[in-house]
């Protein structure tokens, strides 16, 4: 159970190899020796993360298989995982692919891979998650979204639109879960230095996974609905969202 100071005892991470998810989970287990379940397409790829988490104080770490694009498996996956490991105080939805924007512009399969992992897969697994968390009567569901979805730009619009879709879905979901005992937190980081963005030119206001982790853990404790990382991003995006199209397209970040 989450205690009065926002510390959790059990965490499920969908996307167990995500750098940001690892940073968040490491901060959480340092507070309380939580038990962690990492779910990834290849569970063995979570071994390094599992070692780090145990060293950071996790009481148990398990790695299980989860395929974001195998939609038919999601309901069974949620049921077996909760049945096997008990209640989860926190579920972190952290899987996603950046994809190849250039290829995705002429190859439908490449575009679909991005969209189906980031948006459809998120929706598909969230439906049974929300049902199970409701039945549990408590819990926090965290989505790793992105500012890339707040106003989609030319340079990564397939990725951006997939994040916009997932973000929108979670906004509605959060409203539907009011008074259910289940909280939703949407995390919108700007550019984060992770293996997913390795080699890319960093955008302004870029952050590290640890900075995202700090903001998320604070947000969980305070029961926030949306967290921007860094906080200034909120105001930057508010301005960017309302720029006329012609002006927006000329910006270097576009």
């Amino acid at each position, binding site marked *: 159970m989450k205690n009065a*100071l926002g510390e959790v005892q059990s965490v499920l991470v969908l996307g167990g190899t995500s750098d940001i998810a690892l940073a968040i989970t490491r901060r959480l287990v340092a507070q309380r020796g939580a038990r962690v379940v990492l779910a990834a397409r290849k569970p063995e790829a979570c071994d390094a993360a599992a070692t780090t988490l145990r060293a950071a104080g996790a009481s148990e770490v398990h790695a299980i298989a989860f395929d974001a694009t195998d939609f038919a498996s999601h309901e069974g996956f949620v049921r077996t995982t909760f049945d096997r*490991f008990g209640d989860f105080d926190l579920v972190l939805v952290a899987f996603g692919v950046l994809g190849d924007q250039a290829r995705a512009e002429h190859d439908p399969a490449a575009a679909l891979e991005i969209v189906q992992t980031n948006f459809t897969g998120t929706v598909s697994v969230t439906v049974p998650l929300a049902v199970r968390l409701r039945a*549990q*009567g*408590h819990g926090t569901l965290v989505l790793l979204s992105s500012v890339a979805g707040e106003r989609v730009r030319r340079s990564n619009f397939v990725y951006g639109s997939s994040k916009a879709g997932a973000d929108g879905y979670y906004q509605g979901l959060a409203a539907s879960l009011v008074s259910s*005992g289940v909280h939703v937190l949407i995390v919108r980081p700007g550019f984060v230095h992770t293996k997913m963005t390795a080699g890319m030119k960093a955008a302004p206001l870029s952050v590290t996974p640890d900075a995202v982790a700090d903001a998320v853990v604070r947000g969980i404790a305070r029961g926030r609905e949306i967290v921007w990382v860094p906080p200034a991003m909120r105001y930057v995006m508010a301005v960017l969202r309302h720029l006329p199209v012609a002006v927006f397209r000329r910006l270097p970040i576009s």
Partner: protein
Amino acid sequence: MGDTDSATRELLSGWGRTSPTLATVHRPDDLEHVVSQVTAPSRRGVIARGLGRSYGDAAQNAGGDVLSCSNLDSVLAIDVDKGTVTVESGVSLDTLLRVLLPLGWFPMVIPGTSYVTVGGAIASDIHGKFRHGSFAEYVDRMRIVTPARGACTLDPNADARAFWATSGGMGLTGVITEATLKLQSVETSRIVCDTERTDNVDDTMARMLDGDHAYRYSVAWIDCLASGGHLGRSVLTRGNHATFDELAGSDRATARAYTPRTLLGSPPWLPNGLINLLTVRAFNEVWFRKSPRSPQRHVEGIKPFFFPLDGVRDWNRVYGSRGFVQYQFVVPFGAERVVRTALERFSAARVPTFLAVLKRFEHDSRSVIGFPMSGWTLALDMPTSPALAPLLDGLDELVVEAGGRVYLTKDSRLRPELLAAMYPRLDDWRATRATLDPEGLLRSDMDRRLDLSGAGPRRR
């Protein structure tokens, strides 16, 4: 069956208004309803709830059933010769006082609020300004519904294991439906009260050790923001029941009257941050200055002496939507340094705590996992803040080292690993509990968080 049509799904939390969870709340009207709910709850179990004055998650059950016992509120019998009263478990202490005082009777143990049920008082084995016993000590017998035995009567001697596991058992052995309480006779509904200021915590403790023997009731209200030489400066309040002769002439006509009024109700919404260092410092300063510099005696009503906060309905709302945390521990006599260190750390961390309460216990509770033990007990409220976690975790370590413990009824953030060290008879309690509820049908959020019942995390 029973009242399932009227069951409602509600978000429940403790008095600290933290960690709310959703449960299906039933309001049984009679014993049959209670039995049907306890023997066949939903798959996430059932727990009883009184007036929700425990501060944390003892009386809530995420995704499961909660039995709100407020409809079991009949006073069944008063034996004016023996000085006992038999009540249903949903009767509040406020009701008890209104009924008993005009007859010249008073409960042996009274806590800091009258809005607790008798069932809750037993399940938490509550205590008050009275040093020599906790609530369960004066329970003649009680009736309880357990999954294994159904409805049964427990006597403290004949059914010692089950009785003393149920008292202080946080509702996890069954649902208390009725109890017979031993009372004390009183002449009036007033207290003769002596109030004095102390310079610091050492002065406070010395005066309590020195002078408590002359008083039935004793408590020190500590200004937690004072530091240095004034660390732990307090207002010491001690009293005895007033005899008829001790009343002023004008009061004698209403010598046993008890008709307290609630003066105010808190508005439903208050902003966060009302309780901050500035407001608390101002409040504490006024409170301290208002108390007499030299000892003074006056006659006071039961309500202002025992229940100073009951006058404002829902006072907990002043902490806003983030709620607050209560921390209470007891350490044996000889471990005064723990009290001093706690006050030092709260002062240094500039935690905006209102008055802390310091009392002495001169008895050990017979409840298997009961809180009271001979020693010093300190309790305080603080607004919820993530910064509290390392502060309170550190204090827990000191408390454990000194052989003390934290009060579960106030708890909302204790580390489960410390439970066994704080409550050495925990295994004993778990074994008795397993005989009363072998399938673990009784379940609460506190049980899930602290693993009180020892079932481990896999169970729902």
